[in-house]
């Protein structure tokens, strides 16, 4: 078994604070995903909008700068994630296909978790 992080990139204006048929379908899709995979889902969260993000980065003078905003400003931002367990990439891809993807989304990225031995 291996662990993968499924990163959900989307256009948050489509769902943050929005309630319509599309968002209801999306939330229903997430519930169905949770029921289908149960214990194979080790964790997961939706994230607050990018406007709430704060970045800490080196200031170039040996110290750290704290600034408003995400690390990279893009149209599709990281909107949530699932940490899952799967026997191989095919199984993880199959799971990522079951996570709702909005039509305007940036897609679901599947990344293996690094294991230090």
């Amino acid at each position, binding site marked *: 078994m*291996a662990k993968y992080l499924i990163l959900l990139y989307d256009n948050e204006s489509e769902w943050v604070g929005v309630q319509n048929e599309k968002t209801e379908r999306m939330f229903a899709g997430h519930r169905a995903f949770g029921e289908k995979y149960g214990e194979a889902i080790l964790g997961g969260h939706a994230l607050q909008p990018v406007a709430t993000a704060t970045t800490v980065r080196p200031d170039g003078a040996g110290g750290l700068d704290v600034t408003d905003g995400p690390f990279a400003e893009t149209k599709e931002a990281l909107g949530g994630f699932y940490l899952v367990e799967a*026997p*191989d*990439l*095919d199984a*993880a*891809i199959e799971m990522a296909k079951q996570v709702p993807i909005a039509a305007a989304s940036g897609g679901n990225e*599947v990344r*293996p978790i690094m*294991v230090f031995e």
Partner: protein
Amino acid sequence: MSADAAAVSAAVADAHRREWAFTLAATVRVTRDLDLAEECVQDAYARALTAWRDGIPDRPGAWLTTTARRRALDVLRRDVLFRRAMPELVVDEAESAPDPADGFPDDRLRLICTCCHPALNRDAQVALTLRLVCGLSTADVARAFLVSEATMAARITRAKKKIATARIPYRVPSTDDLAPRVEAVLAVVYLIFSTGHTAPRGSDLVRAELVERALDLCRMLRALLPEDPDAAGLLALLLLTDARRETRLDASGALALLRDQDRSAWDRAAIAEGIALVREALRARPAGRYALQAAIAAVHAAAPSWDDTDWQEIVGLYDVLLQRWPSPVVALNRAVAVGFAFGPEHGLAALDALGAEPHLAGYGYLAAARADFLRRLDRTGEARLAYEEALLLTENEVERRFLQQRLVELA
């Protein structure tokens, strides 16, 4: 019975071409590591050069597989702490059907499906297929694609690393996922063939090694997937296209267009085999892309001369192909066929309708086709401009010489 050195090296070279994929695929199952499997198979071929002097085995593939797997077990046993930089390959435990002749499981489909996994980009799929399934050296793969050996080595290493680290499984996909995977595998084979058929750059028109590897791969897929109409269609297309190889250059080494080729020198055996395969592939409904392309090639192959070519049939086939596979390049080829079926002014109109197609901007064949129709219509000035544009967009030396010659003739 002993064999002389020349016979042995010929037998080893032959086995390298025929048995590499089978031997490597069966060894990967033991090593669960692609690099170690490659080392063991290379070692088996090296041993064959000496061992086969005492007699060339009846079934070289079985000998090589046994030797490579034994070597792999030795390495794994001796080095109990055998640690690769990469994690162990995920191997689906389900047994492949054994080869009827020697009983080893035939894992070749597994190997090529792993090389063409959708999580790998197309360049990586092509490189891995040539390296792991065909057994080409990294230097040969690099030369074929005109990149440096270092670049190709990095590409192959990166792809192998992704297979191991992301746990791309060594498995034939389940029924649901098999069709798109076979499509990817066939696309890789077609790309290898196309790159060999007309080299995108450089001094040679054809890279025969790539053409032949693509044909080998396609024959292998046809044998592994005997019911698959697309595998039959692609093999037909490759055979019918390659049947003209020897006639695509004239005696002076200049490009000979279809119109000017010596049809008596076309490979009739390849054409007969290709036509039988087209018939079979066209039975699928709807007919696949490769089958339709092969059908077009078959019309050319069956025509006794350029003037006796059934261009209306060809236009009709392009119409069906365009529905099945709406690609700008197909639309371009259809426009050219329209010109031969109904006259150059019609061809030119069909080409001009494609002028705004962004995928064809920078595509030298569009300018070359326009130039040819303009020349036939005696619109010399415009023809010259179109040939000059085509020259700017063409990097194959043989094709460039052809276009330059046309320009000289128009002067």
